[in-house]
């Protein structure tokens, strides 16, 4: 197993946990929802298929078609984590409409 220097090494986005508000902001909420809509989308546009000269067919996953583990917090404070690959269901989980 090897670890190789990252591509975006020069980019440093500092953040400070202690400066975060204790409440989840609408912006952060929308960010999370937008991400699952994109990452779990099953829109065919997310795939690019091509045939190579030797006959092999290659499908490049450009976007979407991912599995995501989502943790949700119930009213009693308990947490559950479930893996899904469907955007609307993931969004419902993050909106608290489904465990």
């Amino acid at each position, binding site marked *: *197993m*090897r*670890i*190789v*220097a*990252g591509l*975006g*090494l020069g*980019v*440093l*986005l500092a*953040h400070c*946990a*202690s400066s*975060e*508000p*204790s409440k*989840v*902001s609408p912006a*952060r*909420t*929308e*960010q*999370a929802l937008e*991400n699952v809509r994109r*990452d779990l989308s*099953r829109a065919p546009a997310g*795939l690019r*298929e091509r045939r190579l000269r030797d*006959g*092999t*067919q*290659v*499908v490049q*996953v450009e976007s979407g*078609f*991912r*599995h*995501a*583990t*989502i*943790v*949700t917090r*119930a*009213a*009693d404070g308990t*947490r*559950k*984590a*479930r*893996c*899904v*690959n*469907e955007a609307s*269901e993931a969004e419902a989980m*993050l*909106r*608290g*409409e*489904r465990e």
Partner: protein
Amino acid sequence: MTRALLLLGMLLGWASRVEARADFVLVPDGAGFTDSTPVQPVGGNQGTTRGEQRRRALARALEIWGAALDSPTPIVVRATFPELGCTPEGAVLGQAYAWQYIRNLPGDVGGPYYPSALADRIVGRDLSANQPDLAIELNASVDLAACAGVAGGWYYGIDSVTPEGENDLIQVALHELAHGLGFASSIDPQTGTSQFSAGVDVYTTHLLDLDQNKHWDELSAAERIVSAGNVRRLVFDGEHAQEMARGRLASGVPTLSITPAVANVTLTRAVSDVELATNAAKMPVSGPMVLANPTDACSGPINDVSGAVVVLENGPDCAWQDALARLGAKGAVGAVFVVSAPASSPAEPLDAFGYGNPSSVRAVTVSIPTGITIANAIQRDAYTATLAGEADALLGADVEGRPLLFASQPALRGSSLSHFDSLARPNLLMEAYVQGGSNHDVDLTLAVLRDIGWARNCGNGALDADEQCDLGAANSDADGTPCRTNCRRPGCGDGVKAGDEGCDDGERNSDIASGACRTTCMPASCGDGVMDPGEVCDQGIANSDSAPDTCHTNCTLAYCGDGTVDSNEACDGTPGCSATCTLGAPQDASVPTTDASVIAPWRDVDAEQEEEGGLEATRRGHKGCALGGRDGSWSLALLALFWLRRRRQA
């Protein structure tokens, strides 16, 4: 790009090589891995900055997969740790995917699609040079105070001792990486169609619908939609998975039977209504059914439930352990928890109720609709419940030992097809619900990956992952040879019965599977703690011919006439003791005398009920279930509690 990345890494002093069979190359990308926030080493992770700890933890996950798999080409994993945000209700922890899928491999023209890492392994060269094989993305927002309060923080320790409420990064990564390695179906369960233009992926070709008796590549889109909701009737069909399941999964699928049958209630494992039982296979229990009062058995003094199987709500304010402890203290023998699981979907993870439950009170769970029907029925008439287990059936596999896959109709479709059923015990890495205490074991997941093409290369003369030896053509099962044909060294567990071994089924040796050859290479037998074929109970060293209510040393149940006074007997074998183990009173010829689980103390129920004017709270001698009654208020209470809980969750 792979070589260029490696060279760059070495120049920067970042590249590290760990002995592994599959060489995973981690390419950390972005700010998440360079986060310089100082942190203390945790759980064996010696990183002193947050970025370093992230990199080390993820590297450990890759190391685990690297040791389990083998591949002649490096597997390049692009990893990012961006802020993906969170909501007041939760957050994405992580996600992964295969970078490419490839079909028409040399020698497999017309075959299914393979994730690129697997395609490389099969053809023995890197088909996707300059491209990663997998991508994994983990959510840095989970470490922020605002999100950590909702989602719990990340646990970067590598010891799998995850503090309560935190998220084990390695476990999440192992799970998501498995999807990227091929444990994923390309079919959309909503439409039944493949995401690819020319067929399906290799994993999907192993999905077998037991009702339609077809693999998924043989099903039409409409048939797949049906199959995706075929709860507990969808399995992964693969030799490695089947073989490993027999050795890894516990036996004793719980059963709940009610006598006489309750109208409109079908209790069958196939439809998931009976979720789990505890120690079911070891000792069946029977008793009259009574309703708990209070309904959760926790919020006040409990009614008289001695000798009974109690129907109760899995209340939000009462831990299941507390409920069982309180019922046990009152002498209950069994519990039927009514949980908020739709009957047509696999329930939430309910290990709490079953496997590993230390309580003496056996427990099963049923769905809300079934629970209400039962509750109403037992307020009208007397019913006896028996909690037992199918000794030969594996928890999480079909009768052939093929692992069940998560199917759901329709509530949890987003987890369907590409996960194991949540019934599996012990819990598995690829269950839809992430379970704690995994010890970072790749369990049956590895067997599934082998079935789709990550198979071992035993016999090629090179020592591969999970091989103890490999002498190529010199591998032999004959006595005195150093390496077996399955690449195991001679000895118990090599799959060859030799010397003083009574049996040896290799990986199928098991100390929990019914009838299996034990890991000591001795045949299953009475007294080994597992109910084997021909046994009706087996409590291991607790089997006794003199202690009351225990399984006998010949693995038969306690019964009237065995000379031991059991809890539902007044006497047994002593002068003056009746044939039904009562003292003095005339015998009731209608009461069976051979099954201690369904006799006294409620045998004179008819007389009692007449005497008391048919009080609804009295069921075969068990009094005190004052809640509810013929007016159905118990069911109303259940519904109200269910509604309240949903409201709280909303």
